[in-house]
């Protein structure tokens, strides 16, 4: 626990140690006990906590737990087996598509790898310069 972390703690959680994270509370209290100057930081923020605490718990809602539970549980629940069946429907659709895609990819690779009649392909560009010159001529003709 450093002074900086202590300052972050009280800036976020306030000055009441009960609101500090469990994992850091003891270390923070130890540091506070060893470092009296930290009490000034506590004092500076204590009034805000006191002000916040003046907002007491609002009046309870007009909900009765028994009546609410009875009303809600009268609603039919979705059947778990139907929902489970729906969850397994989509893979049945996706897998054939995925298999078809994979087969097409393999076929494409084999055709390319085994060599294709080069006369069926567009004429290759011999160099990058050739391509640039062609584009310049094309642009200049507009």
């Amino acid at each position, binding site marked *: 626990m450093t002074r900086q972390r202590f300052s*972050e703690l009280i*800036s*976020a*959680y*306030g000055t009441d140690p*009960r*609101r500090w*994270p*469990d994992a850091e509370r003891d270390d923070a209290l130890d540091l506070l006990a060893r470092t009296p100057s930290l009490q000034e930081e506590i*004092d*500076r*923020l*204590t*009034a*805000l906590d*006191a*002000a*916040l605490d*003046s*907002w*007491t*718990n*609002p*009046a*309870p*809602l*007009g*909900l009765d*737990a*028994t009546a*609410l*539970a*009875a009303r*809600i*549980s009268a*609603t039919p*629940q*979705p*059947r*778990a087996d139907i*929902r*489970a069946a729906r969850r397994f429907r989509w893979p049945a659709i996706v897998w054939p598509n995925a298999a078809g895609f994979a087969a097409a990819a393999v076929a494409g690779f084999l055709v390319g790898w085994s060599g294709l009649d080069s006369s069926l392909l567009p004429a290759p560009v011999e160099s990058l310069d050739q391509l640039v010159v062609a584009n310049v001529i094309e642009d200049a003709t507009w």
Partner: protein
Amino acid sequence: MPDHSDDDLMRAAGAGDRAAFGKLVSRHLQRMAAVAGRITGNRGDAEEIVQEAFLRAWLKAPTWRAQGTQGSAAFGTWLGRVVVNLCLDRKRRAVAAPLDAAVDVADPAPDAFVMTARGETGARVAAAIDTLPERQRAAIVLCHYEGMSNFEAAAMLDVSVGALESLLVRARKTLRGALADLASEGSHP
């Protein structure tokens, strides 16, 4: 069923056990109502949100699966996240509603039920908190007023603990400014 965990009760509710669901509602209603009441600041909204959250729990029950080893905490966190999200959605909708439709929208401002029996200071604090950005307001409600742990509050807001602390720091800084006359009393003993 005095010692059953929330997960046990959810599984029983999922099998149609209405008494088990009643136990869950009894166990969590007060806390969820407090969260919804403070975040929305409006009794009507809070009641609707709590009812909606428990209805979702009932409909979720047939497919409920225990989340981690701390089953009870997991259900409470799940339910709290539903409540917080419904509160934030309600606040966003109220702000985004067109002006000409304003007559149909519930007033999002704190109503009489929150403003009564708290005294002038409490009313000022409630008003100041109501002006905070929604996630900052929710963070303050969960951590300061409901005493939730940083992990639980972060899970309900669906953010990291670091992000939660950032929300809290900004919220408290704004509140210190808004309540400067109250918040400075302690520095001048």
